[in-house]
């Protein structure tokens, strides 16, 4: 196990930390209660955190519940992810204006992103940012994303109590933050332990009242995380999963899912790694002015696969298959990593509760069982 140096800070130091970040010009984004869920919004104080609240999550179901303590981070992830800040849902890319007879001039380009400090984000959120880095910084170059992401500070929180739809342990992304943070906190009764992941994180800890965490507490945190790994609400056997899914493109289960799937695209917007967008050019009535907008798009819409001659994925079954096989299989080939971080958002926020872990498992188990039957049959042949 990685040898981690932990610091202990009093819970009251968190407001001081927020104050420092605000003073330094950061827009602090953290979990807060809005419209019956815990969403990520701009906050200025720990009073805006869902103190003493937790979330109960199931497929297609989310309810806030009171905790019997006053923990600041006693819940998991909600409907929003960091995607909405780094890759905004609606962005004006540029405007152009007619000038003279034949010319035109470019108007203001994209606005500069704010400097974000993300507080209370989870291991799966950090993993999702790493996945989106491969899309927006490596495969392509998105200046807004790169600037917002590079300047952001990540004050993460480890998850000692996984939620009903969490399966980060299966995807190897959590519940403990292992990379991509400046500070990773673990919430205890009156204190946090803080692991430092960068020099910026170290500087921030130095500015707070802190002491080195004793060995017993450090061990306790390890134990909490080990237990959390074993109490995931969901699990997914990822063994050979990409190849199994790609070998089963004609499996009848895709059509079974399509009997429930409404192609409403909620899974793709809740997903912290889905990165597709529509580009739309708009003109006004005068014909003098045009704008190019980018909005979140989804492979569940018909227009997504529109090309000369029609739609290449006209059936909902084909669209669900595209989404799931991209996420769990072909993403590996394209970006060198799974497109799924195991956050469970697509399960909770599917209005009809379609469960990626269950649907993938039906197909994978079916295939694994028939393969083992074949193997034992051929062994019998050899034996006879």
């Amino acid at each position, binding site marked *: 196990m990685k040898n981690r140096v932990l610091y202990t800070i009093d819970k009251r130091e968190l407001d001081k930390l927020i104050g420092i970040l605000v003073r330094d010009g950061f827009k602090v984004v953290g979990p807060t209660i*809005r*419209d*019956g*869920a815990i*969403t990520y919004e701009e906050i200025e104080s720990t009073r805006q955190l869902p103190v003493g609240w937790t979330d109960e999550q199931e497929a*297609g*179901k*989310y*309810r806030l519940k009171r905790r019997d303590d006053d923990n600041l981070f006693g819940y998991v992830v*909600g*409907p*929003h992810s960091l995607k*909405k800040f780094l890759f905004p*849902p*609606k962005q004006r890319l540029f405007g152009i204006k007619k000038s003279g007879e034949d010319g035109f001039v470019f108007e203001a380009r994209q606005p500069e992103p704010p400097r974000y400090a993300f507080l209370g984000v989870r291991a799966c959120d950090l993993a999702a940012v790493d996945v989106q880095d491969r899309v927006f910084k490596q495969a392509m170059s998105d200046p807004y994303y790169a600037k917002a992401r590079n300047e952001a500070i990540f004050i993460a929180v480890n998850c000692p109590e996984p939620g009903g739809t969490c399966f980060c342990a299966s995807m190897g992304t959590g519940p403990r933050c292992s990379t991509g943070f400046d500070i990773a906190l673990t919430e205890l009764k009156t204190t946090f332990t803080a692991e430092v992941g960068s020099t910026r994180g170290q500087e921030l800890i130095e500015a707070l009242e802190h002491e080195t965490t004793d060995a017993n507490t450090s061990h306790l945190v390890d134990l909490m995380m080990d237990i959390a790994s074993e109490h995931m609400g969901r699990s997914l056997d990822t063994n050979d999963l990409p190849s199994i899914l790609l070998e089963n493109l004609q499996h009848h289960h895709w059509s079974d899912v399509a*009997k*429930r*799937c*409404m*192609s*409403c*695209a*909620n899974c793709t*917007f*809740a997903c912290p790694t889905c990165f597709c967008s529509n580009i*739309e050019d*708009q*003109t*006004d*009535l*005068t*014909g003098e002015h045009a704008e190019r907008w980018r*909005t*979140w798009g*989804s492979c569940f*819409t*018909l*227009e997504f696969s529109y090309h000369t001659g029609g739609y290449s994925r*006209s059936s*909902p079954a084909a669209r669900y298959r595209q989404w799931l096989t991209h996420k769990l299989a072909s993403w590996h080939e394209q970006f060198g990593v799974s497109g799924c971080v195991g956050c469970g958002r697509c399960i*909770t*926020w599917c*209005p*009809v509760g379609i469960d990626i872990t269950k649907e993938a498992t039906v197909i994978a188990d079916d295939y694994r069982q028939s393969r083992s039957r074949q193997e034992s049959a051929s062994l019998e042949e050899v034996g006879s």
Partner: protein
Amino acid sequence: MVKDTKPKLAVYKFSSCDGCQLSILDLEDELLALTGAVEIAFFLEARRKVQPGPYDIGLVEGSISTPEEAERIVQVRKECKYLVTIGACATSGGIQALKNWADVEEYKRIVYASPKYIQTLDTASPVAAYVLVDFELRGCPVNKYQLVEVITAFVAGRRPQIPTYPVCLECKREGNVCVMVTDGAPCLGPITQAGCGAICPSFGRSCYACFGPSESSAAEMLCNHCEKTGTDKPTIVRMLRSFNGYLEPFKQVGDEYERQTVKNH
């Protein structure tokens, strides 16, 4: 653009509440640009002066509900190069299409002192049931920005950019929290075409399908789910039969749920 070559716009009213015509007058910020781009040649709700046809673009509000309207729409089609229906009535039959499931003679007897003076068809129908329509703009009422987009596209000679995907996409781009998931509310957003900007879910209410069925509208899947999570069959029928109940697949699924309701009684 030279003034006298501006395309001529006509706006017609059939059986309707005038709300979609009002959306044109509501354009406020865009009204001057509109009159700069097109000649408003026939629009009785806005001006008394009428220029003779033919017209380049005709906007039709309202359903076809009377014998007189069934004849007039044919004439309207003849005098317009492009015919665009605006709003739920003209595109689906609208709220008055509820009479399509009722006994119209009985209604006439109950409502009117002298039913013999009432000339009405047995059904209220979308314009497209009578004549060829070039473009159908959904909504009860239409969204004024979509209306401007349709006219702009016509003036510029391009295709209107009117999405046909579900409200959920607009709703989640707004950052809304799903009311189905947090409240178990029966929301029609997943099966309804976008365009309103997800107004109702933005205020914590379910979607009422003012914009009618979306592309590959999964009405059956949604209703099955709502039934499983506690919405009774008569409520499901009423949910589907509102502004756009006569459009498929709302009609078929609503009829099926009604059959099951009747069977259970």
